[in-house]
């Protein structure tokens, strides 16, 4: 099995390095094909590993070599394939295989075709390290690695100012979280003496709760950055400047879920600190609602999907925070499938619309792009959580978990969000594929994507539909590692009321969206309607003014402070050094006239020196002579 582990891990690296060889050459179709094949190999190996684990095989744990060892610290490159990591590996390799294939078509005309595959495969490699590592340091390698690849891919079209800006924003914002994560890792090391999961987690049981709390908080802040939780969320929407396959793979299916993975991986820690867990769940619920609300009014197709991703990540954190780790992981998996599908579909639309992103400029595309429309609709249904698609099973489980744990506020928030989700998803679908053909106004002639792209997407389509059916098998497997927290409502009736109620609520939301955006003429927002002038609308459209606030209160002051500090450096720190040097020089300059060259003056200096010495001598002589008397006087004065 170790061989498959290494294949799964290193095939993407080989792919990346292979593609990198051609970065500076013109587009080569085979680069994409080879890369896809290699990623597919990784997928195949992951599947074999999965079947091994499913078949009740032992956890595969290897230690490749030492990385860092000094003092008591010992960090190897160790990899583990257990139930959790194999799930993640499956998700990662599957989605990336599809995205690779899809990209061959999507990036067809791009100059940076080869470079794209180098970055994309590198990302897969980093992600594999992240999920397969058997210690925190390895996790951190992957963690930073995906950040780097995300930077490279968001800023892939580096001639675009916004793209590079977004890339840097993403990187820096993640770095803030990474700092906390690093501190969390230090805490783990100094308290448990190791960074290996299998040593560190058992050792935590004996630690004092406040230490654990800090550990949990810092690690979670790390997770917040990668998973774009409030307040570190702004980068995700901006990251949509990257090519769409990137958004599908990185900013929907895999990287952003790394935070969830971390919490799941650290379940033994978070089980010990339920308060932090509750905080995570509450934040998750908040983000779910918060992001969904922003998606309601946005006019950018990809951003809408991005906010939806954000919102779904909130769901995952709700589950993970409440201790339903397997549910979180399940939702993560299901979400990966339909969200990737949705993004890839959006990519097709973008291609067709010549990179137009505003759904108000689309409409009626169904006729031109039937397959895409079907895929996106199904993905949206799955996202909305309609039975029997994937989203239903996972989301329902989260709702149940919240309910059973008696966190009714969280429950109602995420229930409400589910309605919002349905609304904005279908608002998007409706505006793109139905209603008037507004694109004609702009003289665009849309066309369906390449066939092989659509075929490539089809596994996702299938999984988005059937993933729910796998729930049982999955549950059996995963509980081999994660806590077996099943949520059963006490009464059958409540369960049915809840389930059906939710379904009805969601369905109503979908219908409303269709009614408003498909079956009635869409009023393109032009700033005149009453709604558009309402406070809420503006608030949502401007993303709660948070990016503005960051710009105004963090970025600008940072710039100004930096400039000011530079001034300080030159005019205070450096100037004082020069000043000291100048004191000597200036003194020299000002006193050199003592050397007037006039013999008379020279003689006077000599005599003056002698006289000065003499008077000193006299003073001293007198003092010595009358020292007794002086002492008496001084003591009389009380000195």
């Amino acid at each position, binding site marked *: 099995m170790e061989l498959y582990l290494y294949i799964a891990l290193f095939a993407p690296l080989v792919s990346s390095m292979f593609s990198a060889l051609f970065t500076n050459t013109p587009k080569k179709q085979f680069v994409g094909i080879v890369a896809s094949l290699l990623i597919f190999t990784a997928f195949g190996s992951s599947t074999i590993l999965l079947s091994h684990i499913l078949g009740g095989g032992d956890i595969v744990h290897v230690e490749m070599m030492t990385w860092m060892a*000094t*003092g008591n610290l010992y960090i190897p490159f160790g990899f583990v394939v257990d139930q959790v990591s194999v799930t993640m590996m499956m998700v990662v390799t599957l989605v990336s295989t599809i995205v690779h294939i899809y990209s061959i078509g999507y990036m067809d005309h791009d100059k940076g075709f080869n470079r794209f595959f180098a970055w994309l495969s590198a990302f897969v490699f980093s992600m594999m390290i992240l999920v397969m590592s058997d210690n925190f340091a390895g996790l951190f390698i992957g963690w*930073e690695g995906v950040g780097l690849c995300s930077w490279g891919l968001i800023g892939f079209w580096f001639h675009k100012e916004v793209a590079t800006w977004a890339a840097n924003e993403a990187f*820096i914002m993640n770095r803030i979280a990474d700092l906390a994560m690093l501190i969390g890792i230090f805490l783990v090391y100094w308290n448990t003496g190791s960074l290996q999961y299998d040593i560190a987690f058992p050792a935590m049981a004996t630690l004092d709760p406040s230490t654990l709390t800090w550990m949990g908080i810092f690690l979670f802040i790390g997770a917040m950055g990668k998973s774009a939780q409030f307040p570190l969320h702004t980068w995700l929407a901006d990251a949509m400047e990257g090519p769409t396959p990137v958004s599908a793979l990185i900013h929907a299916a895999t990287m952003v879920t790394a935070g969830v993975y971390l919490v799941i991986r650290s379940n033994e820690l978070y089980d010990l600190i339920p308060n932090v867990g509750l905080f995570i769940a509450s934040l998750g619920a908040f983000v779910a609602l918060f992001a969904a609300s922003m998606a309601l009014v946005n006019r950018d197709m990809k951003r809408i999907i991005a906010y939806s991703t954000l919102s779904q990540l909130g769901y995952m954190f709700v589950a993970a925070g409440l201790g339903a780790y397997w549910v979180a992981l399940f939702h993560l998996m299901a979400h990966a499938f339909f969200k990737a599908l949705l993004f890839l579909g959006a990519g097709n639309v973008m291609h067709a619309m010549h990179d137009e992103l505003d759904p108000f400029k689309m409409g009626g595309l169904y006729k031109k792009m039937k397959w895409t429309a079907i895929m996106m609709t199904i993905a949206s249904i799955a996202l909305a959580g309609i039975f029997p698609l994937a989203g239903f099973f996972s989301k329902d489980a989260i709702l149940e978990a919240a309910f059973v744990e008696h966190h009714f506020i969280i429950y109602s928030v995420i229930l409400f969000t589910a309605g919002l989700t349905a609304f904005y998803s279908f608002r998007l679908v409706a505006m793109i594929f139905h209603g008037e053909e507004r694109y004609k106004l702009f003289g665009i002639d849309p066309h369906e994507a390449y066939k092989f792209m659509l075929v490539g997407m089809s596994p996702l389509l299938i999984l988005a539909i059937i993933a729910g059916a796998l729930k049982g098998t999955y549950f059996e497997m995963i509980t081999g590692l994660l806590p077996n927290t099943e949520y059963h409502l006490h009464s059958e009736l409540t369960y049915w009321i809840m389930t059906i109620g939710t379904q009805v609520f969601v369905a109503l939301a979908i219908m409303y969206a269709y009614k408003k955006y498909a079956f009635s003429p869409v009023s393109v927002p032009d700033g005149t309607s009453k709604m558009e002038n309402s406070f809420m609308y503006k608030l949502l459209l401007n993303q709660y003014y948070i990016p503005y606030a960051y710009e105004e209160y963090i970025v600008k002051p940072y710039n100004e402070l930096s400039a000011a500090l530079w001034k300080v450096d030159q005019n205070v720190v450096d100037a004082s*050094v020069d000043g000291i040097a100048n004191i000597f020089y200036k003194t020299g300059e000002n006193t050199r006239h003592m050397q007037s060259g006039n013999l008379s003056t020279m003689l006077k200096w000599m005599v003056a020196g002698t006289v000065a010495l003499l008077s000193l001598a006299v003073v001293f002589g007198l003092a010595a002579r009358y020292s007794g008397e002086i002492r008496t006087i001084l003591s009389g004065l009380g000195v």
Partner: protein
Amino acid sequence: MLDHILSILIFFPALAGVMGFMINKESMRAYGVSVAFIEFALSLWLWFAFDNNISGMQFMEHLPLIPSFGINYILGVDGISLFIIILAAFFTMIGIASLTDTKDVKNMIITLLFLQMTMIGVFSALDGIVFYVFWELSLVPMLYIIGAWGGPLRIYASVKFFLYTFAGSLVMLVGMLFMAYFFYQATGVWSFAILDWYRLILPESFQLWLFAAFFVGFAIKVPMFPFHTWLPYAHGQAPTIGSVILAAILLKMGTYAFIRFSLPLFPDASVYFMYPIAVISIIMIIYTAMVAYAQKDVKQVVAYSSVSHMGVIILGTFALNVEGISGSVFLMIAHGVVSGALFLLVGVIYDRRHTKLMSEFGGLAHVMPKYATIFGIMMMASVGMPLTINFVGEFLSLLGFYQQSHILTLLAGIAIVVGAIYMLSAYKKMFFGEVTKEENRNLPDVNKRELIALIPLVLITIWLGIYPKPVLGPINNSVESVVQLMHNKATSEEAKMRIPNVSGVVISKTATKEAH
């Protein structure tokens, strides 16, 4: 020959430098490269012959110089100095190979060879005065390099560099004389031998004063805030080769000296000053990172980033435990490689455009993709991307210091954020966006000569990032003995507590690790 390999390493370049006067101008570069290559091969041989299991000094040489005053020519290397020596040999070679400025190339190469002598001398000297001799002597070639081949403000910059460092080291010299005197008082024999000094336990009050005296010398060299202002000038004005050597090797003299002198000689004072120095380091890290962000000249960005990174090194050193000190020694090497490479890279574009202002560039990734790639790798190494050389050092340094103070480590950790800010924005300004300046449209990409210099650096950056053990292992052994020495020497309760006792425990642990 191995018995005298250190002397050979030190004086071979000097001798070759003197002989260099006879070489024809046209053949000078070939001569320089060959000499530097031989030297580098010798330094590799040193590594090869180095016994990793010995934590103490190896290849010791001992010659009486002024025995009546306790000055002897004593050399030796341990894991701490070994790699800096190799790095020095390596960078001299790379530097000469990549020389592009043909003005007075003969003088330049001879100067570089002399500089190499002083650098290797500093890192292998085990006698205070011999150390001081090379330490001071290293200023002269650098003064010349900056002053003769530098930019418009070169004379100001070089004189400032010289005098500032000179003044600082004179205070250090007084400290050394005191140290020797205390040794004399304790034993009745004059000695400047560092290993002798190690055996001397001083009362804490003496330690504090001596620590301060040494600190002035080292802090200016490092350079630590607020003594850092010579560095931007020196870097800003120096020719590429000067900046490379300065950043890669010369700055390491200060941090190396902290580990060689301050810590083992004054363990109590090190503990006493740990917090103030940590605060200075943090100021260095954050403050200079912000200043770097405000720069308009890309070389200044790299220069200030050096100061910022040196802050992390100092912090790791004053973690006073094995993890931190090993990390800081490793980071010295890492920073040497990375900042050296970055200065070389800046030199590449300077050679083409004769400007270093970032506003003059933009969109270079279109015209010089290879250059952009290498620059990108080095930039990422500089911001501490895992699996690059810098990360190992930074991680260990911060990890080490975390044991001493949580909150200060958190503040110091801001390095990874602010570091990313200035580096990424500089990279963005230079490489991203459209090509706006007409002059940039037809810039040639990196050529073979430059690649010969840069590719090895890239390889080292990644190799040691993935597999630091060959370097970290010897460092670790020597650092353990330093920490043990400090623990044994410490007199105050606090110091005993702060400096871990590594004896016994670790040896068994490494044994089990090997068994894995």
